[in-house]
């Protein structure tokens, strides 16, 4: 115990420096964004969308320990909700916030629909089935020409507006996404710390022992799938609104794999890990654009060295929002 006490006493200063550094970089980036060229803002928007997706998928993979490779399906559900409800395709022009709500509900329903058949599966088996599910959704969209426009997708989506304020420029979407990420991030973080989050962790560690202490694992897992899918779907709706175009191409298996990779590289089960993972996997390819094909090689090498150097991810599990707040405001 004595050793632990000294450690705890020695830690706060270091923790404080890191916390302020993280905080300062985040604030600087946010303040600078309005002055950046549109292209850069778009890259940041894409970063934020991937962070949102990462936060959603992390609930299933990181907290509950279920390897889901079909997450992009929920992203597609959200995107096509907007595509169908706010475009000339069906002649519907519903308001953005209402569509967001519809997308969230549809996401939750699809999440549960996927969850029910795979409840008994774990590990590799679950990964394969969810992978199949992701592909099924994409192929359905691709072939349902009369509804989704098939491979051509849906174009000329409505401009989004919230309470009369039009959201059209990249910087508008930046603020929208930033607020969404903050809200969703906070909710998910609080969920993780709630009794439900603890049950998710118990299921991840030992499902049978979790049942043995009275956890209805069916319900807890379905809650994880539904929450995760809801977030994926919300991200999809915002994505569609910002692109004003949706097509099945955006929802390939590669996207699912990319999101899983973000979580693994950043640090499984940690919201800050997702931010770090997204920064590396989304920003880096953009920064390395001029090196054309070489960047894949760069990324590959980086990935290998990261996995050797930090197999548990860049951000340690212990450095979560709680640590950050404590680092910033003392105690």
């Amino acid at each position, binding site marked *: 115990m004595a050793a632990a006490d000294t450690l705890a006493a020695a830690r706060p200063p270091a923790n404080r420096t890191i916390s302020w550094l993280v905080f300062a970089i985040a604030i600087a980036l946010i303040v600078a964004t309005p002055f950046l060229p549109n292209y850069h803002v778009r890259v940041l928007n894409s970063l934020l969308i991937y962070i949102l997706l990462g936060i959603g998928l992390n609930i299933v993979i990181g907290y509950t320990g279920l390897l889901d490779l079909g997450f992009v399906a929920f992203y597609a559900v959200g995107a096509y909700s907007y595509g169908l409800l706010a475009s000339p395709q069906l002649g519907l022009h519903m308001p953005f916030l209402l569509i967001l709500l519809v997308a969230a509900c549809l996401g939750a329903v699809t999440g549960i629909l996927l969850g029910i058949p795979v409840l008994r599966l774990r590990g590799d088996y679950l990964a394969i089935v969810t992978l199949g599910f992701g592909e099924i959704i994409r192929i359905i969209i691709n072939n349902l020409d009369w509804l989704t426009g098939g491979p051509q997708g849906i174009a000329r989506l409505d401009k989004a507006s919230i309470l009369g304020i039009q959201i059209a420029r990249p910087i508008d979407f930046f603020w929208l996404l930033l607020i969404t990420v903050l809200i969703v991030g906070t909710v998910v973080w609080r969920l993780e710390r709630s009794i439900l989050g*603890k049950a998710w*962790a118990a299921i991840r*560690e030992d499902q*049978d022992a979790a049942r043995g202490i009275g956890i209805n694992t069916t319900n807890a897992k379905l809650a994880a799938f539904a929450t995760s899918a809801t977030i994926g779907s919300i991200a999809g709706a915002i994505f569609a609104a910002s692109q004003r175009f949706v097509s099945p191409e955006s929802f390939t298996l590669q996207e699912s794999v990319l999101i899983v990779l973000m979580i693994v590289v950043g640090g499984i089960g940690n919201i800050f890990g997702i931010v770090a993972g997204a920064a590396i996997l989304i920003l880096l390819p953009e920064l390395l654009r001029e090196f054309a094909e070489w960047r894949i090689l760069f990324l590959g090498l980086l990935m290998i060295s990261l996995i050797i150097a930090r197999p548990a991810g860049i951000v340690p599990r212990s450095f979560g929002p709680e640590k950050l707040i404590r680092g910033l405001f003392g105690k």
Partner: protein
Amino acid sequence: MTLVFQSLRKVYGEVVAIDGVSTDFAPGMIHGVIGPNGAGKSTLINMTAGSYTVSSGSITLDGKRLDKLKKYQIANSGIARTYQNIRLFDQMSAIENLEVCFYPAEVAAAWREVIWPPYANAQRRRRREKCMEILRFFDLQGYADVDAGGLPYGRQRMLEIARALVANPRVLLLDEPAAGLNHHETAELTAKLTALRSPDRIMIVVEHDMDLVMTLCDSIIVMHHGKLLFRGTPSEVQASTDVQLAYLGTANDIDDIRAAAQDRRAQLGIRARRRS
């Protein structure tokens, strides 16, 4: 008002693991279950806790049928258990291993924890205090925030019992709690388990350590080849020739066995000791 087994059977294909066991366990007592390896002791525990299904017969607690329920429902009916091979939530801290046991009672209000921080803080503090109390009983308070997987083996055994107690169960099933413990730890375990005896708790201990069983238990059932061979107080069990025979095996030559049993009894007093 007890835990009752009625003609309980467990069959795996051709193999009969539990063959018509009928008995009951009264509250306020510690019941020992002993028998040679493969006698069906752990199977009994696993069926009671819902880890295994029941082939036929019934298990009732205070008149309520348990054997048709799902495992988590059985747990929520007041049955808690530990495992022969420790099964903690390794990457959760010791106290989190206990806190998560509040799930059945509190999950319905989980959404309030999400949207209302003061409520969440109050809940967390209350859970932590309750669990800290249990950890203190097992002298584990110093390990509260250490990952369960990183605890020394003996502490893990204790933590598993602590976790089983959070829900204040009517029935506490302990599957070889002393396995792998040293003498000092076993003595500590005996003391803790004795202190846990309470008028409305049914405690059932499966154990190979005969010293522990004989000192701890008020009543012992002896299992042999899936059947209930003998039931009695520790001294009755020690005096029973049947039990001696069961422990020495059931080879064909019964005379040899009897002779061996007498030899052994002469040498060791009465203690038949086996460890797996």
